[in-house]
C-alpha cells in the first residue's frame, strides 16, 4: 500500500507538467479541468434552481407564481432557447478565437451567469405584483437560456477538445465527475445549516436562505472557473490555418448525415418512459410509511452513492470491454434490474419492501450512471467522426440538431401523466376511496392501489429501457476506429500545413511516424484472439497488434485513396469539372441519379462507393435546381424593370 502511494506520488510529480507517452494532458491540466469544473458545477447547480420548469420550487413556492403562469413561462423559455442555441452554435464554431473553442467561454459566461443568479435572488419579490414577478422571472430566464446553457455546454464538451485520445477522455471525465460532484455535496451540507441560522427553523424554501447562500457560492464558482481558463490548452487535430468555410445551414446538413449522432439521440428519445419508476422510492416513504425519517435519509444517501462507483469503474470497463459493449450491457442490465423491482412492489412485505427496492435501485443506478459517465466521451468520438467524414471540425452545431430532442420531450411530456391516470392515479379513484382533499396523490395511501400503480410504472420503465437499448446495437464506432480516424486527421493536417508552408517539426514527426507504421504493417493479417484466461500476456499482445494493424489500414486507405480502381472515375470527373471552370462546369454534370441508385451495394466497399456517387448526383441535381431558380428570378427581375421603365 505504502509502495503504491509512493509510486502514485512519483508518477504525479513526473507527469505534472509533461503528459505521459501517447497522452495529451499533463496531470496539472487534469487538476485544472476538475477544479474549474467544480466551480462551474457550483454555478450551474445553483442557477438551475432558478430556471423555469413546471415543478420549480423556488419560482412556484418561494416567489409565489401560480402553476399555470409557471407553465407559460416555461413554454416561453423553451421557445427562446431555440434561436439562442443557434446563436451559441454559431459563436462556438465560427469565432475562431486563439484561446480555443470552449475554454474562453467557460470563464466569459461564468461571470454573467453568476451576476444574473445574484440579481435573481436579490429582487424584492415580496413587494412586487404578480405581473412584475412573471416579467422579471421571464427576463432573467432568457438571460439564463443563453449564458447558463453556454456555460454548461462549454464545460461538458471541454474535455473533447483537450485530448483526441478516447481512453484519456474517459479517464479525465471520470476524475472530473468525481471532483465536480463535490460541489452539489458541499452545497447540500451548507444549505440546511445556513437555513437554520437565518430562519431559526428547518425551512429551506425561504427567500432569505437563497439570498444568504447563493451569492457566495456563485462568486466561489466564478473564482474556481479561472482554473480552466488558466490551466488548460485545447488540442484539436486540424491544420493550423484551417477555417470553417461551410455555411451554417450546410454544417447542419452535414451533422444530419452523422449516423452515430442519430443512434445516441434516438436512444435517449426512445427511452423517455425509462424514468417512470423514479418516484416510487419517495412514494414508499411518503404514502406507505415503510421507514422512519432517519432510515429514509440513510436510504437516499446510499442511493446517491451509487454514482460514485460508476465514475470510478467506468474507465476500467471501457478498456476491458469497449464503449459499445459497455453501452449495450449496462442498458440490458438496466432492464433486468428494473424488472426485478416488479415483484418487490407487488409482493414484498411492507417492512422489508423499501430495503429490497433500494438494492434494485442501487444496482440499477450504478449501471445507468455508467452510461451517463461515458456519454460525454462518446459525444467526443462522434465529433471526431464528423471531422473525419466531412473535413470540418464542428462542435456547437450538434446542440442545434439536438433541439429536436427538446421538442420530442415537450411532445412526450404528457405520456407519464397519462399513464398515472390510466393506472388509477386520478380524481375519480381518489373520490371513490373517500379522499376529497382534491389531491389525487392521496390514492397512494391505499396499499392495494399503491402496489398496482407502482407495478404499472415499472412495466412502463421496462418498456422504455428496452426501447432505449435497441439503437445501441447499431453503434459500431469502436475505440480502434476512433484512433484510426485521429491518425488519418493527423496525416491530413500535416499535408495541409505543408501545402500552406507552415509545417511544424512536431506535426511532421507525428504524421510521418504514422505513415511509416502504416507501411510497416502493409500486407500483415490480424491474428485470432487467444483465450484471455489461459495466457493474459499473449492476449494483450495480440490485441495490441490487431489494433495497430487496424489503424495502419485506415492510414493506408487515406494514402492509397487515388490508387483504388473505383476512385478513378471520381477523379476523372473532378478533372473534367475543374477544367471546365466555375462558369462552364454545369455542362459537365452528367451523373444519372437513377443509374447511381441501381449500383450494387452488397459489400461495404460497394456501399461506400455508391454513397459517394449518390452524394455527387444529388449535389448536381441541387445545382441544376439552383441555377434554374436563379434564371427564373433574373427573368422576373428583368420583367419588373421593363414594366417600371415603361
Amino acid at each position, binding site marked *: 500500500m505504502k509502495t503504491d502511494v509512493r509510486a502514485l506520488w512519483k508518477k504525479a510529480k513526473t507527469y505534472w507538467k509533461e503528459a505521459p507517452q501517447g497522452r495529451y494532458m499533463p496531470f496539472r491540466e487534469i487538476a485544472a479541468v476538475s477544479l474549474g469544473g467544480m466551480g462551474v458545477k457550483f454555478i450551474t447547480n445553483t442557477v438551475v434552481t432558478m430556471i423555469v420548469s413546471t415543478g420549480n420550487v423556488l419560482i412556484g413556492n418561494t416567489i409565489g407564481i401560480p402553476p399555470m403562469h409557471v407553465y407559460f413561462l416555461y413554454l416561453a423559455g423553451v421557445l427562446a432557447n431555440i434561436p439562442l442555441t443557434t446563436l451559441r452554435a454559431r459563436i462556438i464554431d465560427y469565432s475562431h478565437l486563439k484561446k480555443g473553442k470552449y475554454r474562453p467561454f467557460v470563464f466569459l459566461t461564468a461571470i454573467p451567469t453568476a451576476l444574473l443568479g445574484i440579481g435573481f435572488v436579490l429582487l424584492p419579490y415580496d413587494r412586487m405584483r404578480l405581473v412584475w414577478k412573471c416579467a422579471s422571472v421571464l427576463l432573467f430566464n432568457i438571460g439564463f437560456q443563453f449564458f447558463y446553457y453556454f456555460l454548461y455546454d462549454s464545460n461538458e464538451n471541454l474535455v473533447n477538445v483537450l485530448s483526441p485520445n478516447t481512453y484519456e477522455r474517459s479517464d479525465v471525465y471520470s476524475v472530473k465527475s468525481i471532483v465536480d460532484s463535490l460541489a452539489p455535496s458541499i452545497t447540500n451540507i451548507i444549505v440546511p445549516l445556513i437555513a437554520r441560522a437565518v430562519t431559526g427553523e428547518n425551512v429551506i424554501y425561504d427567500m432569505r436562505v437563497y439570498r444568504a447562500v447563493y451569492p457566495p457560492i456563485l462568486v466561489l464558482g466564478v473564482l474556481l472557473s479561472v482554473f480552466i481558463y488558466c490551466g488548460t490548452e485545447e488540442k484539436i487535430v486540424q491544420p493550423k490555418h484551417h477555417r470553417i468555410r461551410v455555411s451554417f445551414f450546410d454544417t447542419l446538413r452535414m451533422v444530419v448525415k452523422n449516423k452515430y449522432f442519430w443512434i445516441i439521440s434516438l436512444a435517449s428519445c426512445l427511452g423517455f418512459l425509462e424514468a417512470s419508476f423514479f418516484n416510487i422510492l419517495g412514494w414508499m416513504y411518503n404514502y406507505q410509511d415503510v421507514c422512519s425519517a432517519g432510515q429514509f435519509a440513510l436510504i437516499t444517501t446510499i442511493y446517491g452513492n451509487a454514482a460514485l462507483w460508476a465514475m470510478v469503474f467506468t474507465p476500467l470497463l471501457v478498456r476491458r470491454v469497449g464503449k459499445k459493449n459497455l453501452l449495450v450491457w449496462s442498458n440490458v442490465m438496466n432492464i433486468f434490474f428494473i424488472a426485478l423491482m416488479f415483484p418487490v412492489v407487488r409482493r414484498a412485505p411492507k417492512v422489508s419492501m423499501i430495503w429490497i427496492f433500494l438494492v434494485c435501485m442501487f444496482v440499477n443506478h450504478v449501471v445507468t450512471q455508467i452510461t451517463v459517465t461515458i456519454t460525454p466521451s462518446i459525444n467526443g468520438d462522434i465529433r471526431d467522426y464528423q471531422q473525419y467524414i466531412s473535413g470540418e471540425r464542428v462542435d456547437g452545431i450538434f446542440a442545434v440538431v439536438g433541439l429536436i430532442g427538446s421538442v420530442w420531450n415537450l411532445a412526450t411530456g404528457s405520456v407519464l401523466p397519462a399513464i398515472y391516470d390510466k393506472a388509477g392515479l386520478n380524481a375519480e379513484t381518489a373520490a371513490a376511496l373517500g379522499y376529497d382533499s382534491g389531491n389525487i396523490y392521496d390514492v397512494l395511501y391505499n396499499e392495494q392501489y399503491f402496489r398496482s400503480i407502482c407495478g404499472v410504472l415499472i412495466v412502463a420503465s421496462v418498456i422504455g429501457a428496452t426501447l432505449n437499448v435497441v439503437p445501441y446495437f447499431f453503434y459500431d464506432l469502436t475505440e480502434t476506429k476512433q484512433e484510426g480516424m485521429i491518425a488519418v486527421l493527423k496525416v491530413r493536417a*500535416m499535408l495541409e500545413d505543408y501545402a500552406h508552408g507552415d509545417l511544424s517539426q512536431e506535426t511532421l514527426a507525428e504524421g510521418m511516424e504514422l*505513415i511509416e507504421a502504416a507501411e510497416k504493417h502493409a500486407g500483415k493479417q490480424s491474428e485470432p484472439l487467444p483465450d484471455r484466461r489461459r495466457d493474459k500476456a499473449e492476449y494483450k499482445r495480440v490485441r495490441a497488434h490487431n489494433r495497430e494493424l487496424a489503424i495502419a489500414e485506415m492510414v493506408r486507405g487515406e494514402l492509397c485513396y487515388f490508387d483504388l480502381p473505383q476512385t478513378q472515375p471520381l477523379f476523372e470527373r473532378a478533372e473534367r469539372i475543374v477544367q471546365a471552370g466555375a462558369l462552364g462546369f454545369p455542362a459537365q*454534370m452528367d451523373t444519372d441519379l437513377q443509374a447511381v441508385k441501381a449500383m450494387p451495394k452488397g459489400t461495404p466497399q460497394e456501399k461506400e462507393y455508391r454513397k459517394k456517387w449518390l452524394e455527387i448526383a444529388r449535389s448536381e441535381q441541387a445545382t441544376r435546381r439552383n441555377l434554374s431558380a436563379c434564371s427564373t428570378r433574373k427573368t422576373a427581375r428583368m420583367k419588373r424593370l421593363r414594366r417600371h421603365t415603361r
Partner: protein
Amino acid sequence: MKDRQQAAALRAKKQRIARQLKKTTKAHTMYTRAARPYLDAQKLLQRKERLEKLDELRKLYAAAE
C-alpha cells in the same frame, strides 16, 4: 458638435459596411451552393496534389532525423 458629426459619420459608415458584408456573405453562400460540384471537385484534386507531395515530406523528415 464636431465630435457628434464625426460619430454620426462613423455610424453611417458602420451601417454601410454591415450592409455590404451581409450582401457579400449572401452572395458567397449562393455561390458555394450553386457551385458545390465544382468546389467538391476542386477539393478532390487538391487532396491528390497534397498526397503527391508525400515524397518531399519523406525527405524533409529524413533530413530532420
